[in-house]
C-alpha cells in the first residue's frame, strides 16, 4: 500500500465512513419501509373489502329500486292515477332534488393543483360560482356528483376536505372539481366565463367550460322537519 498518497488518505477515510453510515441507514429504512408497507397493504385490503361490500350492496339496492319503481308505475296505471298530478309531483321532486334529471347544460372543470396557485379553491368560491349558476337560470346543479339543493351547505372539514351535503367531494383522478349545470347553455356559459371563470383564471387555476348534455344525480340526503310546522290553514 506504499503507493497510496498521503494526501489521499484523509478523503478516502471520510468517504468510507460516510458510505458505511449510509449503508447502515439504508438497511434501517428498508426494514421500516417493508414493515410499513405490510401494515398499509393490510389496511388497504380491509378497506377494499369494506368498499366492495358496500358497492355490492349498492348494486343490489339499485336493482331492487328499479324493480320496485316499475311495479309502482304499473300499480299507478292500474288504479288510474291522475297523470297531471304525477307530472306535478315529478316537477316538485326536481325542485327538492330527489329526482335525477338530464338535459343540456355546461360542465365546468376547475383544477387548482398548479404551481401558480397560492391558495386552493375556497368553499366561498364554490358558493359564489353556484350562486352565479342560479342567477344564470340553472335548473339543476351538482358538484362532483353531489346535487345542490336548498339546504346544501359547503364547508371545510379539517384543512383541505370540502364537504358538500356532509359528503367529502375530493377526488384524485381528472380535475379536482367538476360542476354540472342544466339550463340555457349560452346564458350559463356567458355568466360563468365572465364572472367566476375569469376570477379563478386570474388566480392561476385551469378552468374549462364545455357545452354538454348532462345527467345530474339526485340528492341523496334526507329532509327532516322537527321544529318547522305547517300553518293549520294550509295543512288541509
Amino acid at each position: 500500500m506504499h503507493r497510496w498518497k498521503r494526501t489521499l488518505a484523509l478523503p478516502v477515510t471520510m468517504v468510507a465512513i460516510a458510505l458505511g453510515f449510509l449503508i447502515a441507514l439504508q438497511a434501517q429504512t428498508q426494514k421500516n419501509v417493508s414493515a410499513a408497507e405490510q401494515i398499509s397493504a393490510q389496511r388497504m385490503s380491509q378497506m377494499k373489502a369494506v368498499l366492495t361490500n358496500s358497492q355490492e350492496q349498492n348494486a343490489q339496492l339499485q336493482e331492487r329500486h328499479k324493480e320496485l319503481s316499475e311495479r309502482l308505475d304499473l300499480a299507478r296505471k292500474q288504479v288510474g292515477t291522475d297523470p297531471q298530478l304525477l307530472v306535478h309531483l315529478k316537477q316538485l321532486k326536481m325542485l327538492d332534488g330527489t329526482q335525477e334529471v338530464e338535459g343540456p347544460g355546461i360542465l365546468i372543470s376547475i383544477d387548482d393543483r398548479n404551481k401558480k396557485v397560492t391558495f386552493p379553491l375556497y368553499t366561498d368560491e364554490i358558493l359564489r360560482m353556484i350562486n352565479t349558476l342560479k342567477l344564470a337560470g340553472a335548473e339543476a346543479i351538482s358538484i362532483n356528483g353531489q346535487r345542490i339543493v336548498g339546504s346544501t351547505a359547503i364547508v371545510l372539514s379539517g384543512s383541505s376536505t370540502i364537504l358538500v351535503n356532509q359528503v367529502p367531494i375530493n377526488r384524485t383522478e381528472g380535475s379536482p372539481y367538476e360542476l354540472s349545470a342544466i339550463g340555457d347553455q349560452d346564458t350559463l356559459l356567458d355568466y360563468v366565463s365572465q364572472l367566476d371563470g375569469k376570477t379563478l383564471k386570474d388566480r392561476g387555476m385551469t378552468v374549462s367550460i364545455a357545452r354538454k348534455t348532462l345527467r345530474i344525480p339526485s340528492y341523496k340526503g334526507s329532509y327532516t322537519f322537527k321544529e318547522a310546522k305547517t300553518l293549520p290553514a294550509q295543512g288541509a
Partner: protein
Amino acid sequence: MHLDKKERSLLGFSAILLGFLFVLLIKAQGAAGSQMTVQETAIPSLIKTEQENQQLSIENSKIEQELVKYHQGQSASVLLNQQVKEAMMNAGLIEVTGPGVQITLDDSTRVATGEEDPNNYFIHEEYIREILNALWNGGAEAIAVNGQRVTTLTEVFCGGSFIQINGTRQMPPYVIGAIGDSHNLSAALKFYGYSWDRLGEFQEQYGITRKLEVLEDIKTPAGKLRNYHYAEPVKEGT
C-alpha cells in the same frame, strides 16, 4: 490529480454503490408516500356509497309501503296527494313556522369619511350567502331572507345598491329568519360564518347592525315552483 488504475477503479466502484443506494432510498420514500393517497381516496367513495345505500333503502321501503297500500285498495289520489304534499314541504313551497333564530343586518347610519373604505359601511351579498351556508350546516329546516324563502334555486346576487333574491330587489335591513334548533344554529353561525366575526368588528368600528335573536315563532313564507325548460326527469330503469 494523478490517479493510478487501482485508485480509479476504487473510486468508480464507490460512486456506483452510492448511486445505487440513493435510488433505493428514493424508491423507499416514494412507496411510503403513494400508499397514503390511495387510502385517502378510498374513504370519500366509501362514505358516498354508504350514504347512497342508506338513501336507497329508505326509498325502497317507501315504495314498498306505497305498493302495499295500493294492494290494500287505498285510493290512489289520496296517496299521490300525500306525496305531493311531502315533496312541496321538502322543496319549500309550504309556509312553515317554528322556533329558530332571526338575524338582522343593516348598513351603517354613518358615512365613510376621508380615506376610509366605504365598503365597510355596507352589508354585502356575500355576508348573507355565508350566513345562509352556515345556517344550513347548523341544520336549519327553512330559511327566508326579507320574506323570500330560500329554495334550491334561490340566488343571492349583488345588484348594486340592492341585493337580488329570488329575482326580487331587496334593500337593507336584511332580516334572515331560520327555523331549527336555535342552539345549533347559533353555534354553526359562530363556527362557519367567517363574516359573522368580521361583521361584529364592523359593528363596533363602522356602526353597521348585526343582531342575533332567538325567537319562538319564526315564519318562513312559501317559495315558488318554477317552470323547467331544459331539465327532464330521468326515466326510471334507464
